[in-house]
């Protein structure tokens, strides 16, 4: 039976469920020391002096590092811009430890290394920093103004990038369209909030002049690359190993400043040093996705045909742009979504503020884009007197127009081309699942009991699986067992299971005999990382290619060993055999041993040493996933409390290697979106002081807030890769906010409430209800 496509149980779970996972904090190297970070309490200040003398007197304190100390260790202490773009006019990146200035609350200033974290925190309180507070760029809507305080003292204004994404003749469309609707949307997305905070440990071996990082990183090769570059050493002097990770959601993909001070401390002390971020630090110093302000105009003809869309996007970049302008860029190019859109224009302004940097969190600007488009669709439906679902369906790109050139040009200069999918069919599946057609009756019945329920719908298209590449290194040992190293790392998605499933079919080996190891730079020499729904496409296809190659090597060697034709060979149950002649068989272990050779004997012609293959998969463009979600909510109109009662997802991520893990991804994604719609809010005051720094203040959705999520899948394979797979890690989140907020608005239709923001809290919703009641 084929393993590909089956809901095989996750091989990583037993260990995790028994509490036997090995996370970075579970690794205790001999001589281990612990680090704590001294962080800025100011959003913007000049550091006049740092006095560490009394802190160093404390028993058990080993070392305190400041920027000047790192300047001796690295060629520069300023971190590189990871994703440059000529549109960025202020390419500001942070220093490993603050150099003279701090620009957000939480910015690292000094690293303290001590026997344990208790002592390190005692020492933190003894460091005396003399600050000169500077004017603060707080709310991004203020910071963009001409005379606003600047986030960096040396800049004239806070705008760090401006660009336009457009196609078609927008001006003409809007000059002539019979129906034009406008709105403004404030959207906030909080942060990533993995259960495991950031974690890293560095250990330096003097003999070999070699540094090993254990790091909860979504992107271990980036860490190696940047570290080697800034130290001016060869990348073979660094190894990054990724232990188990307790969630990343984008935030752990960044090459944070803390890596470098921790590594320097390990080298200077010749002892392993571990830094575990605590939860309070996670709120202020791990990157957010935070705030955006959109304006939007949408144009329709009398028949409900979409004619054009234009708007502006103001994006809060935070104090630095280490990951460039990826988030607003993706957001602006996601708005057109699944619709036939003749003309589009989005003017984007990115503004620096004195808050931690904004980099992608699950969805990376797409949820906000979908929210903007889908809310406008709802507005249009309301104004045109159309059913929101039917208005959408009328405007989808039909399946026969695939591949569809959407109109925008991608970052690499190529036209954005939706490669596959049948949006109307996927929509229909979701509609059917949700019993949408009978909802109006249910709504009426509920209203007669004084209950206000509503339904919301949202669709999206998501570019997944971007390159440049990911690799897989597969080896069959003389034991007959298979080891797969791949470049990216796993944060709970189930890579060990699904990558084993891919190899299992090719090699005829049981899942139990395949070990999958991600995120070890020594196991796979090059890699990019797990983010942007790219691992399954890139690493998955690399595993496929490499196992195909190993399969050929096995057949070739076995054909020599058994003196049988290659075409007659097949693989199953850990053996290679001649079809129809079960006696003529060799175990993979025997073949592996044979190709490992004997000293002094030449390998027979054409047979390569070792049952091993390293292969990289390089996609030509993104593979586009899509979906339609529906949410049903109930609103308590006396308190503004909204609860999601039911939820449905129609989803197409191409071929599903493991439907169960896909459903898990969608479910988690919906939870994330639900949090963004109703709960998560990283609040700052006007001086950019954070005010939500624990989980009593910043609310994540709980299990009790989650409705049952029913899912239906459409499997239209992408032609972009041999497996026909598209990414599934973010699709659950992208439309969820729009669907939930749309459902709330629908529930409150009798009052005429319109919602143009996310998240929406009970006090705010009550305010909207009261306002609408007055009018």
């Amino acid at each position: 039976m084929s393993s590909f496509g089956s809901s095989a149980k996750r091989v990583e779970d037993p260990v995790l469920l028994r509490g036997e996972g090995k996370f970075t904090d579970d690794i205790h190297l001999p001589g281990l020391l612990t680090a704590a970070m001294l962080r800025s309490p100011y959003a913007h200040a000049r550091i006049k002096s740092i006095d560490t003398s009394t802190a160093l007197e404390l028993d058990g304190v080993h070392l305190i590092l400041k920027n000047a100390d790192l300047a001796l260790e690295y060629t520069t202490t300023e971190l590189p811009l990871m994703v440059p773009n000529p549109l960025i006019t202020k390419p500001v990146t942070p220093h490993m430890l603050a150099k003279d200035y701090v620009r957000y609350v939480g910015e690292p200033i000094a690293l303290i290394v001590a026997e344990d974290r208790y002592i390190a925190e005692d020492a933190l309180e003894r460091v005396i920093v003399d600050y000169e507070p500077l004017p603060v760029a707080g709310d991004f809507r203020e910071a963009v103004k001409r005379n606003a305080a600047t986030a960096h003292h040396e800049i004239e204004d806070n705008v760090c990038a401006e660009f336009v994404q457009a196609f078609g003749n927008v001006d003409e469309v809007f000059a002539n369209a019979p129906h034009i609707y406008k709105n403004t949307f404030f959207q906030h997305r909080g942060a990533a909030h993995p259960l495991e905070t950031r974690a890293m440990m560095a250990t330096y071996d003097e003999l070999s002049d070699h540094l090993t990082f254990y790091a909860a990183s979504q992107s271990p090769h980036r860490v190696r690359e940047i570290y080697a570059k800034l130290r001016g050493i060869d990348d073979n002097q660094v190894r990054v190993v990724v232990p188990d990770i307790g969630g990343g959601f984008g935030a752990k993909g960044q090459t944070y400043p803390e890596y470098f001070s921790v590594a320097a401390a390990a080298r200077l002390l010749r002892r392993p040093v571990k830094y575990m971020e605590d939860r309070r630090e996670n709120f202020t110093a791990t990157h957010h996705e935070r705030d955006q302000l959109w304006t939007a105009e949408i144009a329709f003809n009398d028949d409900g045909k979409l004619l054009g869309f234009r708007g502006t996007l103001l994006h809060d970049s935070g104090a630095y742009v280490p990951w460039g302008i990826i988030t607003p860029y993706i957001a602006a190019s996601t708005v057109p979504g699944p619709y036939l859109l003749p003309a589009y224009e989005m003017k984007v302004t990115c503004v620096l503020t004195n808050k931690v940097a904004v980099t992608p969190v699950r969805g990376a600007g797409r949820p906000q884009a979908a929210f903007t488009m889908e809310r406008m669709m709802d507005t249009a439906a309301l104004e045109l007197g159309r059913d929101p679902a039917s208005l959408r369906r009328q405007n989808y790109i039909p399946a026969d127009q695939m591949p569809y050139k959407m109109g925008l040009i991608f970052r690499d200069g190529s036209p954005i081309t939706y490669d596959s999918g049948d949006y109307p069919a996927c929509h229909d599946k979701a509609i059917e699942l949700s019993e949408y057609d009978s909802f109006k009756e249910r709504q009426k019945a509920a209203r007669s009991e004084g209950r206000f329920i509503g339904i919301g719908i949202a669709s999206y298209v998501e570019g997944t699986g971007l390159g440049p590449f990911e690799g897989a290194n597969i080896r069959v040992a003389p034991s007959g067992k298979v080891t797969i190293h791949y470049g990216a790392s796993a944060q709970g998605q189930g890579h060990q299971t699904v990558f084993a499933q891919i190899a299992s079919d090719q090699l005829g080996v049981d899942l139990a005999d395949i070990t999958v190891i991600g995120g070890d730079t020594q196991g796979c020499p090059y890699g990019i990382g797990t983010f942007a729904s790219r691992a399954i496409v890139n690493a998955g296809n690399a595993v496929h290619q490499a196992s195909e190659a190993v399969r050929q090597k096995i057949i070739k060697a076995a054909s020599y060993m058994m003196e049988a034709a290659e075409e007659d060979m097949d693989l199953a149950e850990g053996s290679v055999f001649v079809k129809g002649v079960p006696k003529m068989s060799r175990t993979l272990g025997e073949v592996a041993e044979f190709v490992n050779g004997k000293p002094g004997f030449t390998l027979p012609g054409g047979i390569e040493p070792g049952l091993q293959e390293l292969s990289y998969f390089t996609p030509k463009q993104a593979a586009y996933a899509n979906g339609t979600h529906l949410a049903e909510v109930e609103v308590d109109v006396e308190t503004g409390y909204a609860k999601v009662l039911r939820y449905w997802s129609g989803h197409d991520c191409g071929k599903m290697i493991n439907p169960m893990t896909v459903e898990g991804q969608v479910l988690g994604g919906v939870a994330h979106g639900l949090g963004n719609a109703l709960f998560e809010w990283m609040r700052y005051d006007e001086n950019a002081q954070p005010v939500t720094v624990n989980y009593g203040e910043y609310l994540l959705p709980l299990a009790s807030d989650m409705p049952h999520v029913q899912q239906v899948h459409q499997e239209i394979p992408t032609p972009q890769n041999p497996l026909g797979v598209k990414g599934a890690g973010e699709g659950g989140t992208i439309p969820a906010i729009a669907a939930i907020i749309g459902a709330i608005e629908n529930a409150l239709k009798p009052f005429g409430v319109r919602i143009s923001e996310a998240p929406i809290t009970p006090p705010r919703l009550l305010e909207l209800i009261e306002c609408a009641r007055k009018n």
Partner: protein
Amino acid sequence: MKPPVFEYHRPESLDEALELLATLSDVKILAGGQSLMPMMNFRYVMPAHIIDINRIKELGEIHRVHDGVKFGAMARHDQAKKSEIILEHCPLIAAGMEHVAHAQIRNRGTIGGSLAHLDPSAEWPALLAVHDATLRVQSKSGERDVPILEWSQGFMTPNLVEDEMLTEITVAIWPEKHVYGFAELARRKGDFALAGAAVLLDFDGEVISRAALALLGVEVGPIRMIDAENLLVGEIPSDELFREAAEHVTVVAGIDDVHASASYRKKVASVMVRRALEQASHQHKSQALAA
């Protein structure tokens, strides 16, 4: 998020604890630890001494006394939720416990800890307010009884001085046939409420003969709605009556925080009063039907 060094004491008896309180300074009592430990980890409080009172047996009990129920300060939320005595004599308290935090926290958290911590949104103070509770405070040099409505001395400030501890809480119980209601709005299940109301009613036939009504989440301490109570007594329940009672919600200062404004809390409190009254009245009707 690690506390600085402190000294840990674990007395086996109340006398021993009071002795420690009398001799040590800069002390914090450790009850369930559900609020104290996070505050210490955040270094919001940095006591030199911790007196862990978990080993003091007599503080952990719930007893029936002549016209009331007596809680040891160390009675756990979960214990109160499941106690036969509570379910029989003051079922409102068991119902209120459903809304306190989550199972793990209810297993550790205590009535005394909740009262000493005095979060404005905690359920205990309001539940005790409708039951006219008396709080016993002891020190080595003596003891005093504090009525629940005099317990709060300001934001998260109980009526306690440094060498004192809260040892027991006694509530007056209501006639067997009394009914109750409890309603609150929390952002998520188990969160501290944005606002809530606890209600006890007693009836003489169809007429409300006695009413007690308290709010949580809107003021720094528990408050009784005396005007509303007076309005209810002598009346027959009706939508109109309950609506009018709900309009009597009077809040002086109000709590304003990251989750909600004082004015929102007040509005919600009023809604919760009405809903709690409806619950109680519904209970009464079911009783009448069953009889």
